[in-house]
């Protein structure tokens, strides 16, 4: 059996909750057990916003991740500082390197670090940084393989229903750019 526990963290408005939701949806459609557990309350307003996503072949215990995270996704510096230590031995740390820089000794030895210039990638491709979260999600899926890559398409069709379907092509492209960026960095 395998369990993936992933913390997505950033500022409110960066899309942490929705990237977690897309991943959770993809996993659910694969028939996995899933939990999506957000921080809630006043800290959403401009402060840090995070969501804990767990994907497993068996029943999920604590929906809150406090240790042994398969992956921490930091969209800004405060999030990196808050969660870097929760990565499991040999786990992955995926950082939006346009907004956060890993300090010396901040990641445990053996952590696989992916510095993804997500804002730049998104801006170059779409003229704005809105889709940086999907770039990051692509990198996460490459780094930890919690789902099959093709399942993300199923998730998009569920999350972007009806009139929102027009957003799918750009989201898909952003996801692929992030996936390929992480793949390049991993060579």
């Amino acid at each position: 059996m395998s369990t993936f526990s992933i913390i997505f963290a950033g500022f409110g408005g960066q899309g942490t909750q929705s990237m977690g939701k897309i991943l959770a949806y993809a996993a659910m459609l694969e028939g996995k057990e899933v939990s999506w557990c957000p921080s809630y309350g006043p800290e959403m307003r401009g402060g840090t916003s995070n969501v804990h996503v767990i994907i497993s072949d068996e029943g999920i215990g604590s929906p809150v991740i406090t240790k042994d995270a398969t992956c921490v996704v930091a969209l800004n510096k405060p999030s990196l500082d808050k969660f870097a230590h929760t990565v499991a031995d040999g786990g992955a740390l995926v950082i939006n390197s346009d907004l956060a820089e890993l300090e010396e000794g901040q990641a445990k030895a053996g952590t696989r670090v992916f510095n993804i210039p997500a804002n730049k990638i998104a801006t170059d491709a779409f003229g704005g940084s809105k889709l940086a979260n999907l770039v990051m999600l692509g990198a996460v899926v490459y780094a930890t393989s919690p789902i099959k890559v093709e399942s993300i398409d199923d998730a998009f069709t569920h999350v972007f229903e009806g009139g929102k379907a027009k957003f799918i092509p750009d989201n898909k492209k952003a996801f692929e750019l992030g996936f390929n960026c992480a793949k390049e960095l991993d060579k």
Partner: protein
Amino acid sequence: MAKVLMKGNEAVGKAAIEAGCRYFFGYPITPQSEVPEYLSSELPKVGGTFVQAESEVAAINMVYGAAAAGARVLTSSSSPGVALKQEGIGYISNASLPAVIINMMRGGPGLGTIQPGQADYNMAVKGGSNGDYHNVVLAPASVQEAVDMVMEAFDIADMYGTPVIVLADGLIGQMMEPVEFNYVRREGIPEKTWALTGKGKGERHNIKNLVIDPDDCEAWNHEHFEVYERILANEEAWEDYLMEDAEYAFVSYGTASRVVRTAIGYLRAEGYKVGMIRPKTLWPFPQKAFDKWNGQVKKYLDVEMSMGQMVPDVAYACNDKNKVVFHGRTGGNVPTVDEVVAFAKEIMGGDK
């Protein structure tokens, strides 16, 4: 029906509709405001009625009225809001009326915090209103279980003529998990022949609360307690988790039990024979679970998001207060896996 990914608060709203609830009266409060929000748009689509009352007190009395008219009716709130509803819950109970109350608990006392808590155990289980009465209290530990329990709550309420409280917490309300809705109505739910539906040419019905003669009032109480005896006999529910060889047993419900489940994984990996009795009903408290395991369990490790409100019930159920130890976080904090593991190791010593 295929599984969908839903927030607990929205899922319990949908569960109520699936179970035939067509009336909701409530007032928003974090962390359960998505329940009224969801029902405000969804109930009218099925011919139901949603009212945002002027207060929680008004809302619970609207519930009282709708229940008296024979409706399946729901209200929901979070801790301080449910505190305001207590008088009405006592009245509904005294009138032997069915109603479902959801409490997505947050940290208290008073206005407290909006983060998740379990410190309304006493208010729900011991009764926050006056007089001799019990609420049936169901304690879900996942979004799916919250859905199933809300559906079941309507059946239990109708079966016995009593308010049923679904006692969850802010985390279950806010998190998303895959859910499916498969409501199957229980067998044997009596018809509401007593409902106030307008006399017409039929019988006069009267639902009242004042029983002024002490002998009558005492007899009335005894009638309620005959119903409670049936509930005690029929409705206890719990989960045994890895209990077969367990020498130490956690006792934990709701969100706290999820953390305990993960902690047990770490402890089992180190060879500790530890399991969990997870009450799904808090009243009736699952006495049968303790009768079943008491012989082999050396200590009960009660873990809650409160200062230990369930401890007396565990001590009573296992008939040995010296067997019960407690670890809790309160005021909106959720215990971490590490602290639960450390607590258990301290109690067990090296006893594997």
